[in-house]
């Protein structure tokens, strides 16, 4: 039975669709269907975030099949300085999983390995892919199995991927560490709002995670023998929606100190930022976002001169910035409680010459003048 409201909504939607230009259809038709067997293949070794495997910013040839392999690792990981342990599930051993970079119209061919030593079934849902729950339906692997999935990267942008093995397993696997991102670059590279090319000298991938670690009666974080042992307590805590840890790259302080990200004055850095589960709002303290794809999709012109950008839970965005001053920059989730109390803080160490024109301390602190 169709209610009156649904009928009205349906009519309105039909009108909108009828009035829309058939962009999407045209785009698909223009690309065509290449002969897969004839396409060149390229094997890419993934690297651990925040680093990103070597890649071309502008594609030098036509579409290719890019082959990746990721091994799922279930393992305990320490997530803060107190030694709190998460029974983590990871793509390729890291939280987040590695950033994969391809170009639009390339084919992503992923072999997903779930070693016998794991205890749970896993799969992968690519937000960049079309159909079969993002590939989740075609990629479920039990311990001791592997699967190979291929999808065509039809849309450019930064997209989350995550494990989604059904029902309550989905959020649990995600907040146990199973998410990452893929960046599908336009074949001719990034462009500003006028269509002029944009380039980056360095790229970093920051994957933000919300963790929910149960506490015992005394208020201490509990550790568990296995992920399965942690499930019941963790799920109960997750339902409250308040994380105990909100961190970049798997643990409090993962991108600080010796592991702080680096750059030089004058260099342009692309920061890809994902959060598979929860909204976040990156901010570079003392810097800006020169060009920001908040939603991460490169078909849209970048926003300019942002102070803070919003990454919706379940998405990845990209921010381009040219450093103008040396020093220590904090890169934070600008919910400052999450940044300082829950852990969502990273640092950039930037070398170079200070520009007095941009900022100077006119007079050092001194006692208030009384006369």
């Amino acid at each position, binding site marked *: 039975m169709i209610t009156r409201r649904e009928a009205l909504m349906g009519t309105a939607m039909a009108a909108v669709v009828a009035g829309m230009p058939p962009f999407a259809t045209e785009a698909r038709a223009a690309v065509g269907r290449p002969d897969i067997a004839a396409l060149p293949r390229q094997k890419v070794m993934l690297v651990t975030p925040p680093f990103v495997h070597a890649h071309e910013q502008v594609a030098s040839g036509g579409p290719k099949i890019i082959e990746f392999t990721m091994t799922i690792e279930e393992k305990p990981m320490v997530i803060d300085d107190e030694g709190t342990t998460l029974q983590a599930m990871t793509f390729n051993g890291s939280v987040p999983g590695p950033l994969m970079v391809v170009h639009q119209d390339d084919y992503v061919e992923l072999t997903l390995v779930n070693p016998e030593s794991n205890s749970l079934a896993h799969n992968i849902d690519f937000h960049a892919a079309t159909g079969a729950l993002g590939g989740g339906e075609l990629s479920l692997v039990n311990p001791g199995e592997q699967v190979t999935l291929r999808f065509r990267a039809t849309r450019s942008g930064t997209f989350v991927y995550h494990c989604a093995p059904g029902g309550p397993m989905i959020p649990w696997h995600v907040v146990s560490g199973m998410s990452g991102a893929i960046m599908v670059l336009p074949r001719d590279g990034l462009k500003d709002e006028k269509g002029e090319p944009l380039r980056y000298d360095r790229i970093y991938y920051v994957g933000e995670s919300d963790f929910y670690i149960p506490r015992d009666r005394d208020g*201490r974080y509990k550790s568990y023998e296995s992920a399965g042992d942690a499930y019941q307590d963790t799920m109960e805590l997750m339902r409250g929606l308040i994380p105990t840890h909100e961190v970049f790259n798997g643990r409090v302080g993962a991108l600080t100190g010796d592991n702080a990200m680096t750059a030089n004055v004058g260099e342009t850095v692309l920061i890809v930022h994902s959060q598979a589960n929860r909204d976040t709002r990156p901010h570079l303290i003392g810097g800006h976002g020169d060009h920001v794809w908040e939603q991460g999709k490169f078909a849209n012109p970048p926003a300019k001169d942002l102070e803070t950008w919003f990454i919706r839970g379940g998405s990845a965005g990209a921010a381009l910035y040219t450093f103008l001053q*040396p020093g220590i920059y904090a890169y934070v989730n600008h919910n400052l409680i999450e940044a300082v109390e829950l852990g969502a803080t990273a640092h950039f*160490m930037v070398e170079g010459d200070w520009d007095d024109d941009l900022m100077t301390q006119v007079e050092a602190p001194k006692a208030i003048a009384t006369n």
Partner: protein
Amino acid sequence: MSFDILHIIGGLAAAAAIPASLLGAADWLVDRPVEPPFPAAQTVAVSGRVAYPLPGEFLRDGRPAAAPRRLEEVAAFEIMTYQVSVLDYRRCVEAGACRQADARPGQALRTPVTGVSHLDAEAYAAWYSQATGGRWRLPSAAEWALAAGERFSGEDLPVVADADNPARRWLSAYRAESARGRASVSEPQPRGAFGANRRGLYDLAGNVWEWTATCYARSTLTPDGREIAGTVENCGVHVLEGRHRAYMSDFIRDGKSGGCAVGVPPDNLGFRLVREPRGTGLAERVRQAVRRVFR
């Protein structure tokens, strides 16, 4: 019970812990509130001269400068052999004179109390003085430096003064902080875990930083850098000493959230007290002299 008797049996570790260990039950404390006066903690007598970098920030020609080192004659004092423990502090809470600490739950009673602010430490000192009949207070930064001896570190961050590029100082300090070793564990450990210094004081520069009575201050140095031309004190912020020097607002109980945007904060905040000499009478001076000789 006099101090000297306690000193003799001091090998049993903290005197304050004796009643509980003899009776074998911590609930002795819960059932029967401590009636003052009760035995004071084991202490070590300290006096002498100390050369140490002054706490606070220093400016010279409007630029950050290294802290000047001063040689100070410190009047004789006694300082607690161990940091104030969970058990010690609980007595103050039970007497209604101290607020419950934010210490991590389930800690052994002989663990140094942590999760305490400067205000908490001062409240404890006031109560403890009354309870024991002595004059107890937090040590000054100079007293702490003298007592800590070879365990004292004070400022250890390089001050790179580059008039054209303030970022050089920030970067070098950041690198030094990153390279600075941390205690192997951040969780407070039972008393004695970090060993004694040459004076016999335990757990200095372990993973519990200690509040001092010294205020944070910013001073302007004379152009030659030798004298202090002027100082603005902020006594809402006090100096903490430990593996490295830190400054915290008086109400902060957790070093991790009390620091600034970048930098490695203290693992835990705690304290130990000093006792001022009881008097200048002959008997007291003889007692102190004898104790010094036999230490």
